[in-house]
């Protein structure tokens, strides 16, 4: 045992000193032979005989050296190094080939690595610096008809007290705040968090402290804040004495108690957080008042960390038990509601959930691109391996084992794919932040969707590189398997364009490429059509010439009476601005981030089926809302100034609601019960889109803002003026009323629509880019194979010409061969795509996964590309000079 270990060490040492040891060996063997010769001379032999006898009794000097070397060093590594050196030399000798191959793999591996890094950075390890993210889960409520809801503070406290499987439960609710510094008021994003937040995520402020237990209890009791590193740098110029200073957030003076470390962006996928306040300050940041003691107020976004070794299912079971106990104990707020934990990548309340389907599809797409790239490089190597067949055969003939040849080919594949992988990592590094670029920018909110190139991404990419090596190296190796020694050592046999023979490997690679890129084209076409459909679907309101913004009155600490006065004053000022046609408030803008209130309803004369509690969502809007947004009123009237707190309660319902609850009868004047109170239907509006462009028509109604007041509604303005003009004017008016107020970002409703469809846009953009890349790679493959086939079969082409075939015949011959490959690829691709496109799932909108237009356009693009790829080789075939060919 000791001896074996010892000899391993010696071999390793020898491996690094092999040049010197080689000289030693030469010296030793020479001295042996010389001594042997001397002895033979002494025994009376002639010098020539003495030498011959010495060599004979020694045996083969070179064989001895070879055995000696194998014994001395690490032959595996030494031959590998030889292969590497040889491979590099071979690659250097044909730079065009090498660059093309490496470029293909760079794109293939780079696309994979980039998507891996996005998946890692957005879905699996979304929160930089947060410890043990593999044990983090998102926690959300469930209700009968809703996949997920926010959770209420009292429910969370009960959960925290009773769950044995949880290390920690913490709240992190995204919020916006007006940050006032001197005269300036600006808007930034932050989080309302539970007091255990920083401890639970294992992030320690670099200055000051996190929150202390109890700081999340008591109404407005603890005005303290931790600020982000970026905020510390940009607003406080990195002031070391910042702790203990005060800062107005939403016009409430907060004491800064900590500065978060650099690179910590909070716990919300998509946006970077700039400050954190304890939940006790919730009222200053959330629109609907103090909610910590209201079990019915669901506003919190929560996460849990499992104890080590606990599975999600175990935790879910325990949580479900507690949730059903809460349901029994508090039926009036919790009936029909549950609590569910989600893996981070499915987090229902941030951008992880929206991007998940896109990223899933991207994983499949980049795998396709990689395969196409590999097929290309495999093909290139294959073509070259024909050129190198002679070399291979000679090596076999002088005794190289087939294993050794295989190793050589794999080593060459490895060199190419390792260089490709290195390039790929660069591509991934450059693309880290590319997702943000694809999403529309929002002013004031720092988008943050980083790719994360960590050990796992590197390992996966290395795996991809190895797979690429295998594919790329084995294709030509497969070809050498049936090298016919005798045949190949004779002259190169020339190929035939129409012949089958050995060319089938290359052809099937091309078919594979065509097939894969056809599938990608179909996918891209489907997604494009969906986006087109989404973009051209009418949202039910006017998108041009209508602006949307809001004012930070909640943030400025306005109470309800003051907010009412302010709203009235502002709307008068806005309406009298030049170029403003109308203006109105609405608690929520259509397609925005917030969620509508939902209420159980009852309708006179409508008997709900048993076990069904009709519910509907509603919005609180001011007079002229429908005129401003351009939502048609079918019958009845708009809300007016007269529909205030003192007037009878009224509502405007949408058409779907009329159809469902009044069976199409005119509901004007009928009664509707909302939150236990009866209101009278005053009008019927057309259906429109409320939360998403892709939603189906749903029952929805409106109540006057004054009868269900919200302090911080959005402001909608219909105007003929450009946005900048109105923005400046409204800002001026707001400041004129109160200089502590800030105007939220002003956007057109078209912008709002575009933002809400941005996941589709991202998917379309990425799939189209990669589909184009795939098409390019596939056409290079097709071109390469056809060019090679033509160049290898000049003899046959010449013969055909000599026998009277015209240029058009040859053109047809070559083209038909190329197009046959394409057709085979398209047929297989269409069959596979037919089964696969279903997986695009809800990224498709009003487009069948088997849409003939998508398949048709993919076919057209593929055909044009294939013809383009074959034309040049075909043309070259017609230029064959029969006389010259026949002379050879």
């Amino acid at each position, binding site marked *: 045992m000791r*001896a074996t270990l010892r000899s391993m060490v010696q071999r390793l040492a020898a491996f690094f000193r092999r040049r010197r040891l080689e000289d030693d060996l030469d*010296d*030793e063997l020479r001295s*042996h032979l010389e001594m042997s010769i001397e*002895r033979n001379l002494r025994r009376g032999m002639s010098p020539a005989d003495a030498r011959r006898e010495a060599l004979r*009794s*020694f045996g083969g000097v070179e064989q*001895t050296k070879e055995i000696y070397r194998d*014994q001395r060093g690490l032959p595996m590594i030494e031959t590998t190094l030889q292969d590497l050196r040889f491979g590099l030399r071979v690659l250097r000798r044909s730079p065009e080939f090498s660059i093309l191959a490496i470029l293909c793999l760079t794109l293939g591996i780079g696309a994979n690595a980039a998507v891996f890094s996005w998946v890692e950075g957005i879905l699996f390890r979304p929160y930089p610096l947060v410890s043990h993210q593999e044990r983090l889960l998102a926690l959300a409520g469930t209700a009968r008809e809703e996949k997920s809801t926010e959770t209420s503070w009292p429910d969370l406290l009960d959960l925290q007290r009773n769950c044995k499987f949880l290390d920690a439960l913490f709240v992190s609710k995204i919020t916006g705040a007006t940050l006032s510094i001197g005269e300036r008021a600006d808007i930034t994003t932050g989080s309302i968090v539970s007091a255990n937040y920083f401890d639970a995520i294992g992030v320690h402020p670099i200055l000051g402290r996190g929150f202390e237990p109890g700081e999340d209890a008591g109404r407005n009791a603890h005005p303290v804040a931790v600020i982000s590193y970026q905020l510390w740098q940009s607003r406080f110029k990195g002031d070391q004495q910042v702790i203990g200073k005060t800062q107005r957030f939403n016009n409430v003076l907060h004491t800064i108690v900590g500065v978060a470390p650099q690179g910590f962006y909070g716990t919300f996928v998509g946006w970077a957080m700039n400050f954190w306040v304890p939940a006790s300050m919730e009222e200053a940041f959330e629109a609907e008042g103090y909610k910590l003691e209201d079990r019915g107020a669901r506003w919190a976004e929560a996460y849990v960390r499992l104890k080590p070794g606990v599975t999600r299912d175990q935790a879910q079971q325990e949580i479900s038990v507690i949730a059903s106990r809460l349901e029994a104990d508090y039926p009036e707020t919790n009936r029909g509601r549950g609590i569910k934990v989600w893996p981070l990548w499915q987090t229902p309340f941030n951008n992880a959930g929206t991007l998940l389907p896109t990223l899933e599809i991207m994983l499949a797409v980049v795998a396709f691109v990689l395969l196409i790239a590999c097929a290309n490089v495999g093909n290139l190597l294959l073509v070259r391996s024909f050129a190198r067949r002679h070399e291979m055969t000679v090596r076999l003939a002088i005794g190289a084992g087939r294993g050794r040849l295989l190793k050589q080919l794999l080593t060459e594949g490895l060199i190419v794919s390792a260089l490709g992988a290195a390039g790929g990592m660069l591509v991934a590094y450059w693309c880290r932040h590319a997702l943000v670029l694809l999403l529309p920018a929002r002013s004031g909110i720092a988008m943050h969707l980083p790719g994360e190139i960590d050990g796992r991404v590197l390992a996966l990419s290395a795996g991809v590189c190895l797979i690429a090596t295998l594919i790329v190296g084995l294709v030509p190796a497969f070809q050498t398997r049936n090298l016919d020694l005798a045949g190949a050592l004779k002259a190169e046999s020339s190929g035939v364009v129409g012949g089958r023979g050995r060319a089938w490997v290359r052809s099937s690679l091309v078919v594979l490429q065509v097939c894969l890129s056809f599938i990608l084209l179909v996918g891209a076409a489907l997604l494009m059509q969906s986006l087109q459909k989404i973009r051209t679907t009418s949202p039910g309101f006017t998108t041009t010439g209508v602006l949307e913004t809001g004012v930070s009155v909640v943030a400025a600490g306005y109470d309800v009476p003051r907010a009412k006065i302010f709203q009235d004053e502002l709307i008068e000022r806005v309406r009298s601005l030049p170029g403003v046609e109308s203006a109105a408030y609405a608690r929520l803008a259509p397609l925005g981030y917030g969620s509508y209130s939902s209420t159980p309803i009852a309708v006179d004369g409508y008997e709900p089926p048993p076990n069904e509690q009709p519910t509907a969502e509603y919005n609180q809007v001011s007079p002229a809302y429908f005129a401003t947004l351009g939502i048609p009123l079918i019958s009845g009237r708009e809300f007016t100034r007269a529909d205030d707190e003192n007037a009878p309660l009224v509502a405007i319902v949408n058409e779907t609601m009329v159809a469902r609850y009044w069976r199409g009868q005119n509901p004007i004047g009928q009664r509707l019960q909302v939150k236990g109170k009866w209101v009278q239907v005053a009008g019927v509006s057309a259906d429109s889109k409320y939360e998403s462009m892709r939603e189906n028509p749903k029952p929805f109604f409106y109540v006057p803002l004054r009868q269900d007041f919200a302090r911080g509604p959005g402001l909608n303005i219909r105007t003929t003026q450009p946005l900048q003009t109105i923005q400046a004017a409204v800002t001026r008016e707001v400041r004129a009323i109160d200089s502590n107020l800030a105007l939220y970002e002003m956007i057109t409703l078209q912008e709002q629509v575009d933002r809400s469809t941005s996941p589709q846009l991202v998917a379309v953009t990425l799939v189209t880019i990669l589909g184009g890349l795939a098409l390019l790679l596939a056409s290079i493959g097709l071109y390469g194979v056809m060019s090679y086939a033509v160049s290898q079969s000049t003899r046959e082409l010449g013969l055909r010409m000599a026998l009277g075939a015209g240029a058009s015949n040859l053109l047809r011959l070559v083209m038909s061969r190329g197009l046959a490959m394409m057709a085979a690829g398209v047929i297989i691709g269409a069959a596979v795509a037919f089964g696969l496109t279903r997986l695009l799932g809800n990224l498709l909108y009003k487009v069948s996964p088997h849409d003939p237009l998508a398949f048709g356009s993919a076919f057209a693009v593929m055909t044009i590309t294939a013809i383009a790829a074959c034309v040049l080789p075909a043309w070259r075939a017609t230029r064959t000079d029969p006389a010259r060919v026949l002379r050879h």
Partner: protein
Amino acid sequence: MTSPQSEVLQGTLDLLVLKTLDSMGPIHGFGIALRIQQVSEDLLRLNQGTLYPALLRLEQRGWIVSKWGASENNRKAKFYSLTRAGRRQLEQEAESWDRMSTMINRVLRTT
């Protein structure tokens, strides 16, 4: 065709080398080859070249050490000598060789 010479049995070469070094003291490769041939009265057909990988193997295991020196004719040569571990190994191998040959002899006689 039968030859009076016999091939060196796999593995016995190590034993022969160790034994030679034990009885001759430090000696170079050619010396070892010569010695083995003389002692075996030319009955062993030894490709002298095969000696060198064997010497390397023994050295790697720490049973012998080598040192450059000058031969009797003042020629540069590598001299090998037995280490303590090598001597132990020789004893063990000699013993197991004895056991083995006794056993084989017994088998040959009884059948």
